């Protein structure tokens, strides 16, 4: 864990921490009655733990870790479908490395690869395109996974494949969107949320307006933030000041990267290639309306669901979570990871049982990696 003195700009960090403390006192936030701020993005969760920001800020501020880690919200059924496609002899299945260890009901992609399926980790959908060009006799499938940050790249890859008439390339599209699960959490009467830290890189693509409903309809403040510790602290301060002033607005702390209206080229590519699914399943959160994207019929030739008859289109396939795992409760901020009976026992980053343990952006993995002391604290 890093402390404020180790920050690049310790003076600035200390000044912001002091202002956070002053405003927290002004609004009467205490350890017993804290202000609940959800950081939506898994990258922010990771940064908060890496720098120990949750311990550095005033004790009346509690971070609730949001659903913004795409690997963590991937249901087992989707992993099973990946394995099913990957095990076809003609298929070269390509995926971001993050997805390799997510458990499915039968096996993870890692296990499927060990069992002989041709599964390759790629850095980019462009690598998958290149594989398709070089292997015309194989079916190259790319696992489209992630929020609006990665969605445009898959859309642009499909457009490129269409321009080239590459018939042996397709995408297994499981892209999801950020605003819809936030709405679902705000509609959940059990959730206590006082404000949000908005994702930086998702917002770089979609802009800040998709969050307007949070301020307008739910009267909650949100500040879109960058990834440096100082960015995060400043966004916490922005949210607290809004609460103090009785304001609810969408503020942009990361304006140096996030344009108000997003990235026009990305948005156009996404609109051209994708349409919303009526609903989509999230691990731990269940079905959420309009929260997933599928490939439009005009691009059906590049849709792995159409090509192989596997996926969301092929009918409901709900699979129960493994016994004794509390992923859903952790995901909705009801309990801390350390309260899960499997934490550190049946579930570790080496042998994950739930997906929150797989990626460094998952809350359980972050607790495990940086919170050894906290785990003991909680056990005492």
């Amino acid at each position, binding site marked *: 864990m*890093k402390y404020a003195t180790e920050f690049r700009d310790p003076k600035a960090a200390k000044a912001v921490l002091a202002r956070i403390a002053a405003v927290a006192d002004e609004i009467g936030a205490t350890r017993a009655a804290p202000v609940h701020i959800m950081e939506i993005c898994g990258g922010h969760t990771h940064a908060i733990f890496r720098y120990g920001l949750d311990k550095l800020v005033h004790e009346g501020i509690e971070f609730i870790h949001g659903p913004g880690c795409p690997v963590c919200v991937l249901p087992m059924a989707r992993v099973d479908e990946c394995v099913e496609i990957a095990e076809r002899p003609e298929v070269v299945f390509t995926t971001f490395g993050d997805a390799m260890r997510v458990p499915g009901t039968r096996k993870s992609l890692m296990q499927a690869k060990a069992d002989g399926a041709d599964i390759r*980790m*790629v850095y*980019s959908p462009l*690598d998958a395109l290149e594989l398709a060009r070089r292997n015309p006799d194989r079916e190259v499938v790319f696992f489209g996974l992630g929020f609006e*940050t990665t969605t445009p790249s898959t859309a642009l890859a499909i457009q490129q494949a269409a321009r080239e008439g590459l018939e042996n390339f397709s995408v297994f599209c499981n892209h999801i969107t950020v605003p819809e699960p936030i709405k679902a959490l705000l509609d959940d009467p059990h959730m206590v949320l006082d404000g949000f830290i908005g994702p930086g*890189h998702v917002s770089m693509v979609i802009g800040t307006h998709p969050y307007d409903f949070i301020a307008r309809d739910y009267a909650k403040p949100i500040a879109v933030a*960058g990834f440096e510790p100082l960015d995060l602290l400043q966004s916490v301060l922005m949210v607290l000041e809004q609460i103090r002033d009785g304001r609810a607005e969408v503020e942009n702390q990361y304006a140096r*990267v996030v344009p108000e209206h997003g*990235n026009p080229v990305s948005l156009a590519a996404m609109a051209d290639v994708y349409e919303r699914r009526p609903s989509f399943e999230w691990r731990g959160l269940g079905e959420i309306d309009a929260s997933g994207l599928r490939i439009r019929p005009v691009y059906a030739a590049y849709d792995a669901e159409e090509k192989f008859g596997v996926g969301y289109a092929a009918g409901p396939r709900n699979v129960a979570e493994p016994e004794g795992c509390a992923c859903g409760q952790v995901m909705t901020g009801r309990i801390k990871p350390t309260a899960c009976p499997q934490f550190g026992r049946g579930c570790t980053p080496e042998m994950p049982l739930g997906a929150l343990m797989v990626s460094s952006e998952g809350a359980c993995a972050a607790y495990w990696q940086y919170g050894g002391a906290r785990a003991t604290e909680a056990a005492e």
Partner: protein
Amino acid sequence: MCLGIPGQIVAVTDETRMMALAEVSGVRREVNVACVLDRPIGDLVGEWALIHVGFAMALIDADEAAKTLEALRDLGEAQEALEAMEAGQKALEGQS
């Protein structure tokens, strides 16, 4: 996978496909620049961009690039991105 990594665009490789060579922490890789093409592609050479899974998604200044890279190194994400690039290269060569 969700956090981009800063890279400097050093050459145009394929104008029709909107591809350029970017240097990321000393590693060179081809990236798509469609999303930041607000000028003739050749004029992007020398610019810094946030690169996400092989796509330049936003132009940033050199100072911001340096700060972001430092934060990513702290988080271990810079290393992860470079390893992913290497894995991608291996996948193309059919060795992974």
